[in-house]
Structure formats: structure tokens, C-alpha cells
């Protein structure tokens, strides 16, 4: 975890309302792992006050990247950054996705701004010789970026209006895929997901209903104070002896069966 000042390499539209921000990432800082995030202080002004968390969506030689959506004050300000501007960063933070066990096939399911970390994870998995199935859900095709994916990734877009790829939810898309690919048995999969809570919850319910249930990893979001484990602000409800876990420390990636999906509530996503 480093507090560093990086330089913007590019900041450009990736899809409708989404931008991709690439910035310098020093050799001397730990290489961000898929699932990890950073926080950005978007301005020196007291408004917006808090640093904002964003997941890494890619990294490369001396750079790292996030994919973000213009939502409110901070992300709108981010949208104004230009090549050469300075960025106040804290990262990499949090845990990361673990490789599939027992040679299971990785299935990565992203929705909305949850796309970033699963895209990054799919590239890393492909580079490691896995053949990830990548499902990206969106309302319509305008919300799905042009992905310059490496070979070895099976990419299935799913749109609510059918304007691109599968017509339906990501869960239906996955079900449909499994039906058409009997070899890809549920018991042989390991699922990774990042996206709106309702999507991840639906995925969890569906997955629990399968026999045997495949492991499902979910990357959670929660409004953050410190992002380093100090303030206890970013918790999610979990099953187990402690009722809460910190997204910034124990997460953002959790075993979906640990999450108390009833207690997730807050529909900010």
C-alpha cells in the first residue's frame, strides 16, 4: 500500500457514461492484483471530501488503469482530467481474486462498473493458460465497451434489451450457456463476480440452487472512509462469529456464502 502521485496517461470514453483512466504506476509500488482497488483524492477542495475507491481494470508496463462511471461530484471531476495531470492515489488496497481450485473453469461475471475487476481478472487468467468464460451484462449495447480482449477468453455480452449478445440477465446468460455446453458442468466451475448487489445476489441464489454449488467469489462495494481498515465504515454483513467484515480489508472479494445477502440492503449500486 503506497500513497503516491501518479500522472494521467489517458482518460477517455470507454462506453456510454464510462471512461477509462490510465495513469503511471511506479515500478517501486506493488503490482496491483485483480480484485484490488485504489482510492483517489479527486481534488484539493473539501468538496468532495473523501477519497473515492476504484478497482483496477488493467495494468501494464509502468501503468495501471481503472474503468469508471460518471455518477456524482467526484467522478464528474475525474472526467475532466487530462493527459499529464497529477493524481493523488492510495493503493493497491484490499484482497484479490484467488485462482480457481482443482482446475475448475473460471467464469467471470461483471455488470456495470463491476466490469473493471473482472476484465482485469480475465486477462490475467488467460495469460496463465486458463480459458475464462467472461459474461458482461448491461442494459444495452451502448454500455458495453469495445473490449480488446486477448485470445483465450470466451466473451458473452448480455443485454437487457437484446441489443448485443444474449437477450436477458447475466444469470440467464450463464444458464443458457451451460445448457448449450453440457461439458461445462456446474460442479467444474469457479465463479467470480463484480457488479450491482442485486445481480450478485441473484447469482448467489442461483448458484446455491445447483448441485453441487460452484464456489462463487463476489467483489463487494461499500462507502469508504479510510480504505485501510481503520474506521470500520465500509463493512458488509457476514455470517460467522463476527457480524461484519470490512470491504477494504477482509474484502473487497468475499466468498459469496459468507455474505449475509439479506443485510446488504443499501441499493446504491
Amino acid at each position, binding site marked *: *500500500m*503506497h*500513497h503516491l502521485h501518479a500522472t494521467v496517461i489517458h482518460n477517455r470514453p470507454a462506453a456510454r457514461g464510462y471512461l477509462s483512466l490510465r495513469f503511471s504506476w511506479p515500478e517501486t509500488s506493488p503490482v496491483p492484483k485483480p480484485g484490488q482497488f485504489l482510492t483517489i*483524492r479527486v481534488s484539493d477542495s*473539501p*468538496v*468532495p*471530501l*473523501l*477519497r473515492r475507491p476504484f478497482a483496477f481494470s488493467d495494468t501494464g508496463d509502468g501503468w495501471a488503469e481503472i474503468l469508471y462511471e460518471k455518477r456524482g461530484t467526484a467522478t464528474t471531476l475525474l472526467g475532466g482530467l487530462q493527459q499529464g495531470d497529477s493524481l*493523488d492515489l*492510495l493503493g493497491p488496497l484490499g484482497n484479490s481474486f484467488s485462482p480457481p481450485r482443482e482446475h475448475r473453469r473460471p467464469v467471470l461475471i461483471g455488470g456495470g462498473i463491476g466490469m473493471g475487476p473482472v476484465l482485469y481478472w480475465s486477462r490475467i487468467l488467460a495469460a496463465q493458460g486458463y480459458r475464462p468464460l467472461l459474461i458482461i451484462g448491461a442494459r444495452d449495447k451502448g454500455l458495453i465497451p469495445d473490449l480488446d480482449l486477448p485470445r483465450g477468453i470466451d466473451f458473452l455480452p448480455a443485454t437487457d434489451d437484446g441489443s448485443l449478445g444474449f437477450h436477458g440477465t447475466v444469470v440467464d446468460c450463464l444458464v443458457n450457456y451451460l445448457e448449450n455446453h453440457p461439458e461445462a458442468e456446474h460442479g467444474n466451475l469457479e465463479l467470480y463476480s463484480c457488479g450491482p448487489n442485486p445481480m450478485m445476489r441473484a447469482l448467489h441464489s442461483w448458484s446455491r440452487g445447483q448441485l453441487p454449488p460452484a464456489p462463487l467469489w463476489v467483489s463487494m462495494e*461499500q*462507502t*469508504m*472512509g*479510510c*480504505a*485501510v*481498515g*481503520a*474506521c*470500520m*465504515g*465500509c*463493512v*458488509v*454483513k457476514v455470517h460467522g462469529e*463476527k*457480524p*461484519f467484515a470490512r470491504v477494504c480489508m477482509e474484502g473487497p472479494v468475499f466468498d459469496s456464502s459468507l455474505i449475509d445477502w439479506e*443485510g446488504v*440492503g*443499501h*441499493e*446504491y449500486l
Partner: protein
Amino acid sequence: MSTFDPRVRIGSLTMTNPVGVASGTFGYGSEYEQLIDLSSLGALYTKAVTLEPRPGNNIPRIVETPAGMLNSIGLANVGSRGFTREKYPYLRDLPCSVIVNLAGSYIEDYCQTLEYLEEHAPLAGYEVNLSCPNVKCGGMALGTDPAQVAEVTRELRKRTKKPLIIKLSPNVTDITSIAKAAEEAGADAVSCINTLVGMLIDTKHKRPLLSTGTGGLSGPAILPVGLAAVYRVSQAVSIPVIGLGGIMEADHAIQYLLAGASAIQVGTANFVDPSATARILEGITDYARREGLASIQDFHQFLGRKAQL
């Protein structure tokens, strides 16, 4: 450029400098060890410790406000035994003064927690949080009544010779009466302010943005409120006052020192800029040298701080 002695005395304790980190915003130190040099802190005030572990409030617990934030963490902590086991070994070895922030619902809780820690996890001193607005039972009423503040202070005083700092709530009609009660009952210092009671509402979902409805407001928005409190309290008591609330920059900290504070705490600013404390200490030092102020006491000559003992 004259020389400046940054040391601060609180009871029997000498802090190396006036810049501490506020309870609840710095965990137990380890969370920030990769980001700042902990030996540069004048004091580290831990997250509140209660007798028994507390899970804290439901989510969401944090929301941003104009130039501030609301929290309703609700004293989430591992309890006095958990603290002793999990946090104490690390804190004991830290190169800065560590003050344990105590919380509870009843006077009895405070006494038992302090007794337990005196025996099992002795650190540099105690800050008594009588004023957390995020706990329903007791806490709020405790810190707003001078008689009860005096009583809890007296009881804790019996149980420790270490610095005893009473943390004051701004959510009262007359903060000076509370401060005086603490002073008379034997507190070594008071710290102010804790968070203001605040609320925001999600108009889309028509419900509060915090699970608890109201929460505690901190950050730059409350800077003027903290300064007014410290200014008033400094003219009412002669024990040291530790100022906090909205400090982001050295200039803010200097305002607190001029208002009468002997030390300050940086809270929310740690979230925004983990290197805030270093920047602030440097700024205070530069200012003192430039203005020919030889010690923290010298800051107090301009706005009429009540003479210190």
C-alpha cells in the same frame, strides 16, 4: 528563525509534539504503519474500547456531506479483552504516546474498562468518550450533564494516575460547564470536540442515508464549531485543552492553538490525506519559528487563554 519546543505536557505525560490522531479515525495504528512514520505522532488516540466487544451499527455507516462526513460506526470494537490480546502488544511498542479512548453506556462500564486496562494493557493515558452521539443508551446523556461528567471523572481519577482526558461533546447548551465539571473532578485535560449530531436523507429511497437515522458529523464543515468550543473552554478552565474538529491544514491547527489548545488531533483528514499529520506538524513548527513563538504556551498569549497551572 527562533527555536520552538513542540513538546506538550498533559498530566504526567510529555508528548513529543502537539499533533495527535483522533480516536476512531486511525484504528489502532497498524492500519497506517505503511503510510506514515508513527514516531512522528505526538499522540495516537485509539478507537474507542468498551468493556465487551461491540459489533457496531448496521450499514450504511458513512455518508459524505458538504465539506464533511457523517458516521454511525457505533463503537464497533473488540472489547477490553480483545484489545488486550489483539491490539495491546502492537500499541505497547509504538514509538509515540498511545492514549486509549474509553467508551461505555454507564459509569460502571467506564470504571471496569479502565481497571481492566490499567492491569492488563497499560498505555500512556486515557481519553474518555462520554459523548459519542451514535450510541443510544446512556452515552449521550452522560456527556451532556455536568454532574455525571464530574462523577465519572472522579471515579476514573481514583483508578488511575495516568493522564485522564475528558472528551467533550459539542451537542450541549454550555460546553464550558461540562469542561469545568471535568476539571474540578480531577481531569488532566479535556479534548473537544466530538462529532455534531447530523443527518442526511436519501430522497430517492425516502429514508435516512445512515442506518441509525442520525450520526456524527466531522470534517472541515465543523472547523468553526470546534474552534468556538476550544476558545470558550480555554477561557473557562486552566487544564490543557486538546482541540479537534475539521483540521485539514496546518493553518487550522494553528487556529486551534491560538484559540487556546495545547495540542490538537487530526481526525477525518487522515482519511483524505494520510500524510496530513506530518504536513500539519511541519506547518506549526514553521509558523512558530517565523512568529518567534518558543513553545505551545506562547500561542496562548493573543486570545486570552485562562492561565495554565
